[in-house]
């Protein structure tokens, strides 16, 4: 019996939804429609595969420069996942950003980064001044 021949492309993904790490396969036809998803053990895996295949997105976490703060770098994050193929573009834009302390966690650093509709916010409070250890409490920014 001759093997069934598939006339499309098969892409492989490693599922990240749980530690099982199923090896997923997404097969599409000539027109790019998903024909079949294989290799998953649960529904989450199946939807992960479909998402990864059609619209892979990633959260971006990086740092921007900050002046006058306790540290020279401020960690920032995107408020939602951005298209995977725009991650480096987002990061490159952020590399040029410099902010002034004090900063409060959640402050919007760049709104609608690279036109993705996603904001980049501060991941922490960044108080002014270069030293800690002066008070019996963490010098948090006034809220």
């Amino acid at each position, binding site marked *: 019996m001759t093997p069934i021949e598939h006339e499309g492309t098969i892409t492989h993904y490693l599922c990240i939804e749980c530690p099982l790490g199923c090896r997923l396969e997404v097969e599409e036809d000539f027109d790019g429609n998903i024909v079949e998803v294989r290799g998953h053990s649960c529904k989450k895996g199946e939807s992960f595969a479909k998402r990864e295949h059609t619209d892979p997105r990633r959260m971006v976490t990086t740092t921007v420069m900050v002046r006058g703060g306790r540290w020279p770098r401020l960690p920032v994050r995107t408020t939602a996942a951005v298209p995977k193929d725009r991650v480096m573009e987002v990061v490159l834009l952020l590399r*040029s950003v*410099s*902010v*002034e302390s004090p900063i409060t966690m959640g*402050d919007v650093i760049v709104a609608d980064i690279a036109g993705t509709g996603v904001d980049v916010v501060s991941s922490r409070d960044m108080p002014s001044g270069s030293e800690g250890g002066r008070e019996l409490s963490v010098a948090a920014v006034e809220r």
Partner: protein
Amino acid sequence: MKDVIIIGGGVIGCAIARELTRYDLDVALMESEIEVGFGTSKSNSGIIHGGHHTEPGTLKGELVWAGNQRWVELAEELGFGFRRNGDLTVAFDDAEVETLEQIAHQGRDRGIPGIEMWDVDRVRREEPNLSRDIVAALHGPTAGVVNPYEACFALIECAVANGLDLHVNAPVTFISKCPDHFEIIAGGDRFRSRMVVNAAGVHAEVIARLVGLTEPVIRGRKGEEYLLDKRLAGIVSRTIFPCPTPTSKGILVIPTFDETIMVGPTAEAVEDLEDVRTSATGSETVFALARRLVPGISERDCIAEFAGVRAVTPNNDFLIGPTDVPGFVNVAGIQSPGLTAAPSIAELVVQILAEEGLNLSLRSDFRGSMPRPVHAALLSIEELAELATKDPQYAHVVCRCELVTEAEIRDAFVRGARTLDGLKFRTRAGMGRCQGGFCTSRSMNLLAEMSGQPMTEVTKRGSGSWIVREPEHVDGQVVEMT
């Protein structure tokens, strides 16, 4: 015009420098690395040999015992650590016991006191963690341990305080013999001196050739050493030697001055005199042989490893003396027991220089003693608290594994540290079990601040050993926060 230029700032060069600054002379020292001791000396095992292991009929044998005795005073005067913890040379069978008895003879003939054979019961009582297969041991109470780099720094600081002109980052590239002096180019600068002392370690042959001499001939013999976690401190209290063979002293178990246990060194001929690589076979050999002496030792306790290259002459002995070039003195092939013999080598060299025509007149204002640097880790809590009331930086921890405070780091800078290794060897910051994981960024920040440079200019040990670099420059865009 200098009276003497010493080429090489290892422990020998530093010892000679200090000795020469007792006299009314204009002395300079040229060191090729960024700090003294950064050649072979920093990799030295730090053992001050008891004097009984060294063969008679050699220059080594003539100088070792006198050198040993001088270390006690030196440590006192210059404030570095020295512990006369003694050594034990062990035997696993009767043939080895015979060898030990020969060594005992050798030692007594040299006038070394206290050499004693211990039977198995005494060995087990005194050093309970040694192998149960050991049948006897030779105890040499005169042996000790120092930190060799501490000794280098202390010696050179004393010399500098007494007027030594120290040049680092100054490799000697040219020497020309003129009728009554030498012209020398070191680190791109030109110097003139009546006499030259070649104490350049593994580079002594290269230096000698600059004046057309065919001696010394230097070969390299590399030694790898492995440092163990402090939790093993006290596993032995004396330096443990296996029974020596004709070719080697063997792999030792060394309780260093700071109580970290060190095992090694290997002995391997190397072509490249700067080959300081450690190796898998080296590590296997060292741990296998160390375990044979002290079964409780395991690779899992290793926290660091390093290697150094010994300078070896064809007859394996020191080569110290005047040469066919008047005023040029060789001090070469100073391998073990070189550290031990250093003080007496220095005295011998001064004598040789006098015979070469150097005018020696003792200074009345020679400062032989140096204040001991503070090591917070060695102080009691009360002493530390006292210090901290006068200088709060004594209460600011930089290296937590070795308890090194900011005050000590700053002091090390004042005393000449310009690199991370320079700080490490003066203060021990970065030598502990986390190997700088915690303190590196703090030390670098302090160095950067004190030298007025950005962090990216701080190096591990000068030259091209940068540690971090600036991020790629991107045109800044200042974001206005609303």
